[in-house]
């Protein structure tokens, strides 16, 4: 029973040894006088060991006198005894208390500032503004107003759209979100043209305002005027500049290519190996046993252990076990079909990253060339996209 044992520990008890002839009588008298004995164990004919609480220990001495037995205290167990021992050592209590206070005060200071989420704004700039508004390494966490500093940061850096500051332990985390700049818009009244932003073959032109300069099938290069804002009606002699407005869809091409070697050198382990251990302190590496690398071709396998690791805090101590395997180089011709498949997959993934989303893919052309033991793959994907871009004349 855990509760009982805990209670016994808190109230304190002693293990006693009772020596005498009438031990059963002793126990009976104890029972009758409501003295609680437990864990009674007979060591030999005239000696028993039992546990009794501090309060009952005094009563038991009287009982011992009646029965003529001797009582020795073997061990004192429990919180009251421990407390008495501690009470005599005042400096120890003071030291413990002092170190606790020291610990609490030390942890109320900020030791590190971390900026997360910034891509274009340098962290130094954010930290500098934080320092100006009274938050720097060494400031106390209980004397700073985080919401005020957040607002200050937002006011000072226009490019930020959201700031969240949180304190975790001694670390200050500044989460920022940058604004994505809105596309440049030209006001309706300002005369403008629509020009091409990339190479393409015109597929469809939808003019809402202005005059189409290209038609289906035309090849355009970047900068070419697609829809002009310049209107001219010769009969009436009117020449006017408008704000051109419309959509121009064109076939554009995304291309990607890659070459791989078909003959591969594979390092195969021969079974011979040498192990060495290294202790890494910070950036310094200390070799524990001096073994030089005896092989000309080899593979090194490194395994590092960090012995002092607690959650995400770790000491810069590392034990590295290095295993150097002797190897033989073997030349092998790769399976062409397999290589083709792998290469194709890699290139397609690469291309799909480049192509903006929501575009209609018309065609894709894949081309493999094998030359001098090298496999070359070329993929072209044809899509339809809006290539128009507003530009002031």
């Amino acid at each position, binding site marked *: 029973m855990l509760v009982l044992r805990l209670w016994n520990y808190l109230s304190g008890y002693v293990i006693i040894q009772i020596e005498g002839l009438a031990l059963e009588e002793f*126990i009976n008298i104890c029972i009758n006088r409501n003295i*609680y004995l437990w*864990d*009674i164990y007979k060591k030999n004919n005239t000696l028993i060991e*039992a546990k009794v609480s501090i309060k009952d220990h005094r009563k038991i001495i009287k009982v011992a006198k009646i029965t003529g037995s001797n009582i020795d205290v073997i061990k004192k167990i429990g919180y009251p005894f421990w407390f008495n021992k501690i009470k005599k050592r005042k400096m120890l209590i003071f030291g413990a208390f002092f170190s606790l206070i020291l610990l609490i005060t030390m942890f109320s200071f900020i030791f590190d500032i971390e900026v997360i989420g910034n891509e274009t704004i340098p962290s130094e700039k954010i930290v500098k503004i934080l320092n100006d508004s009274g938050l720097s390494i060494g400031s106390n966490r209980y004397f700073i107003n985080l919401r005020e500093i957040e607002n200050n940061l937002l006011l000072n850096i226009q490019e930020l759209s959201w700031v969240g500051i949180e304190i975790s332990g001694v670390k200050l985390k500044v989460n920022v979100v940058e604004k994505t700049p809105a596309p440049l818009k030209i006001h309706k009244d300002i005369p403008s043209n629509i020009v091409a932003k990339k190479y393409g073959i015109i597929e469809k032109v939808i003019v809402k305002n202005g005059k189409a300069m290209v038609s289906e099938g035309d090849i355009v290069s970047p900068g070419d005027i697609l829809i002009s804002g310049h209107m001219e009606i010769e009969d009436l002699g009117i020449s006017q500049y408008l704000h051109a407005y419309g959509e121009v869809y064109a076939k554009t091409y995304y291309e990607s290519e890659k070459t791989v070697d078909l003959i591969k050198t594979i390092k195969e382990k021969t079974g011979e190996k040498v192990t060495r251990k290294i202790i890494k302190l910070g950036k310094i590496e200390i070799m524990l046993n001096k073994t030089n690398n005896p092989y000309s071709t080899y593979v090194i396998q490194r395994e590092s252990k960090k012995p002092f690791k607690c959650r995400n805090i770790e000491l810069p101590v590392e034990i590295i076990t290095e295993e150097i395997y002797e190897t033989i180089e073997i030349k092998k011709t790769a399976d062409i079909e397999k290589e083709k498949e792998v290469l194709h997959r890699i290139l397609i993934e690469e291309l799909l990253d480049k192509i903006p989303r929501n575009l209609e893919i018309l065609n894709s052309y894949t081309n493999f060339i094998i030359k001098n033991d090298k496999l070359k793959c070329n993929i072209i994907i044809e899509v339809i996209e809006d290539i128009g871009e507003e530009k002031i004349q």
Partner: protein
Amino acid sequence: MKNSHEIKRKLAESLELPKDIILDIPKITMIGDIQMNIENHKGIIEYTNNCIRIKIKDGILKIMGKNLLLKIILKDEIVIIGKIQQVEFTL
């Protein structure tokens, strides 16, 4: 004396009262052969590691075993732990 005991037994049976209270006899609970709880005892007569003799009403309860230990001993309850091999009632 014997007569009154008989009356009490019959009374307890007819009224379905707990016999150990009415008749003042021990209630013994055993957990396998490792623990034994004896309620309503009259004191301890002999105690060694191999044998415990407990006074009960109208007799003696003798428990034989190995490494017997009096875990708890109170005015009306005794808990014995250890390896119990034999339990014997003697009048």
